[in-house]
């Protein structure tokens, strides 16, 4: 911290934060209404919720384009000092840490139900009476293919689709690293090709995942309604899929920026941030592959 090459850049006023806040506000109001209207929860028909939700999204997209354009301009104008770069890096790392904790909540739920709740419902520990009086026919097992209330389903094995997906994500990560190396050595062609492959693999992953969901719903009876196995399965893989979508989109943006020649070996924080994010998504998947599909 001892050297301060240039002054820390404090941006002038910016309208994007308030727009972002309004965007979030409209989005969540829309989402809450939309969910209630589309699940018959309250008797207010109509599609106001949907319109609000879409409007909110549009505001958020508008905001992101604008906000990022501002920061890109600043970056290109050379306003970002080394110290500023560090700020961005640290910010991104802590953000990823918060994402890890978000997934942690769902992994925690998975472990808890799998290791404690389900055995307890089957009479383990001091829960003999829970089993005997309340769920006499229930059998504890994992995957929980028959829930206490009798819903049956089939579990999703690790083979072949999830395994294919693991391979896709890992290779995608490798290509990304090659691309990263390319940026550092200013080998633009390498970057464009390898990053491109990485992105294509990412989107392929999503297609496979979509097919897997289709299969689960139509052939396995594995749905969101299918007890705790379905709940944890879809929330974990679903949020992961959402993050893959975000990550792949980020990488796509980076790809365009590379075509525009935005990065150089010394200044490519945005690319690195996207790459970290992608690796994070990768690691979550590997973990998920083991505990959700395999074990």
């Amino acid at each position: 911290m001892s050297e301060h090459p240039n002054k820390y850049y404090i941006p002038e006023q910016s309208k994007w934060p308030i727009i972002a806040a309004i965007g979030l506000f409209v989005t969540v109001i829309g989402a809450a209404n939309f969910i209630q209207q589309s699940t018959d929860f309250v008797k207010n028909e109509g599609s106001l919720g949907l319109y609000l939700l879409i409007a909110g999204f549009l505001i958020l997209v508008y905001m992101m384009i604008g906000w990022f354009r501002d920061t890109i301009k600043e970056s290109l104008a050379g306003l970002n000092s080394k110290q500023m770069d560090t700020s961005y890096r640290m910010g991104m790392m802590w953000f990823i840490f918060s994402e890890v904790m978000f997934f942690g909540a769902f992994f925690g739920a998975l472990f808890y139900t799998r290791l404690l709740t389900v055995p307890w419902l089957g009479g383990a520990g001091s829960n003999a009476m829970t089993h005997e009086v309340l769920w006499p026919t229930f059998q504890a097992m994992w995957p929980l293919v028959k829930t206490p209330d009798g819903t049956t389903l089939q579990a999703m094995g690790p083979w072949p689709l999830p395994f294919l997906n693991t391979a896709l994500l890992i290779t995608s990560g490798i290509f990304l690293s090659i691309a990263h190396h390319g940026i550092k050595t200013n080998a633009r062609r390498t970057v464009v090709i390898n990053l491109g492959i990485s992105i294509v693999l990412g989107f392929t992953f999503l297609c496979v995942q979509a097919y897997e969901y289709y299969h689960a719903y139509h052939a396995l009876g594995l749905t969101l309604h299918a007890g705790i196995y379905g709940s944890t399965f879809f929330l974990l893989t679903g949020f992961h899929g959402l993050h893959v979508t975000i990550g792949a989109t980020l990488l796509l943006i980076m790809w365009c920026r590379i075509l525009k020649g935005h990065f150089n070996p010394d200044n490519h924080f945005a690319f690195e941030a996207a790459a970290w994010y992608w690796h994070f998504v990768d690691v979550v998947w590997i973990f998920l592959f083991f505990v959700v599909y395999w074990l």
Partner: protein
Amino acid sequence: MDRITTTWLRPLLAVVPGILSRPLFAELQYDLTPGVTQISQDVFHLHRLMLYTCTAIGAGVFIFMLYAVLKHRKSKGHKAAQFHESTLIELTWTIIPFVILILMAIPATRVLKNMVDTRESALTIKVTGRQWKWHYEYLIYENDNSLKLSFESQLSTPREAYETPLRASGLFPLGLANYSGEAPKATNKDVNYLLEVDKPVVIPTGKKIRFLITADDVIHSWYVPEFGVKRDAIPGFINEIWTLVPEGKEGIYRGQCTELCGKGHGFMPIVVDARRPADFEQWLADSQEAQRIAAEEAANSVDATFAMETLLEEGEQAYLTTCAVCHQPNGQGGGAIPALAQADIATQPERIGEHINVVRNGRNAMPAFKDLLPPKTLAAIITYERNAWGNNTGQLVQPKDVVHDQ
């Protein structure tokens, strides 16, 4: 001193700790009850141990502070010393509290281990919390597991007693804590206001009793301070807890639901009636017999038909005890609870089947009543709902109409 002054003084004096006020105002409770069971007394001693240690530590800390505040002040010309940092001192005030904590943890561990040991109990009662009453089911007594006794127990304080306007209790209704005597005059409230039920759960003294605690809807919690028992009633799981009221401690013990369970949470008392084993056995036999007869009558009455007046009369009673908590005595509902008065479902003759089904099977937050109430009562309630508050459909629902979905 007239009554007003003493009642004003009482709470003030109560703040003065222990000895001073206690003999004078024994009825004003401001400490934990020692209770009647071994567990509750163990807990009580643990509580006192903690209370005294913590008070002592607090007092120690505050005395140092007070001394500093009084003596080490600039206005007294005290010059500030400049000492700081001392590993030795830091270590001391790390280790001493640590040791104190270990000394506290030892008895706590012992009592806790004892609490969860439900083996070798003589009587097993299943306790089910429902919005907003307790359901008791006697399962096993002295190895006899063919008991047939279950009933619901709910608040019996009349609504008028708590739905009172501000001034009915006087502007300064102090001295109410003096409740051991007769009912306080300033109010229309009885001494056991809000802590009385229609049917208490009866247990024998001198025997270990195991409670299997669970719930049907949301989480409740079964709490009887004098037993030192509090256990959450969790839907879908059974928690076991036990108690043993020593012989000679027969009597009525009161408690309340202690987990927020919706708007009736404050109106879900628990009353335990501990009797001598012989009395208990008598009661058990009598109650089983009574229940058997009632069940028979209900079975017979399924095919009977009743006159409008009979049903309306029984229906009103049953409605007030069972339905009015939510739908209100005037049928207006409120908040998320739909109104019944002038509601289509209760006024349009062709929707009578739907009406019956909702009562039988429940809907959203409303429980299914088909297994909770006998057919005659269901029929009476529905008849009442379709004819009260200006819903004059004139329709009559008989027990046989409600034994199946329509």
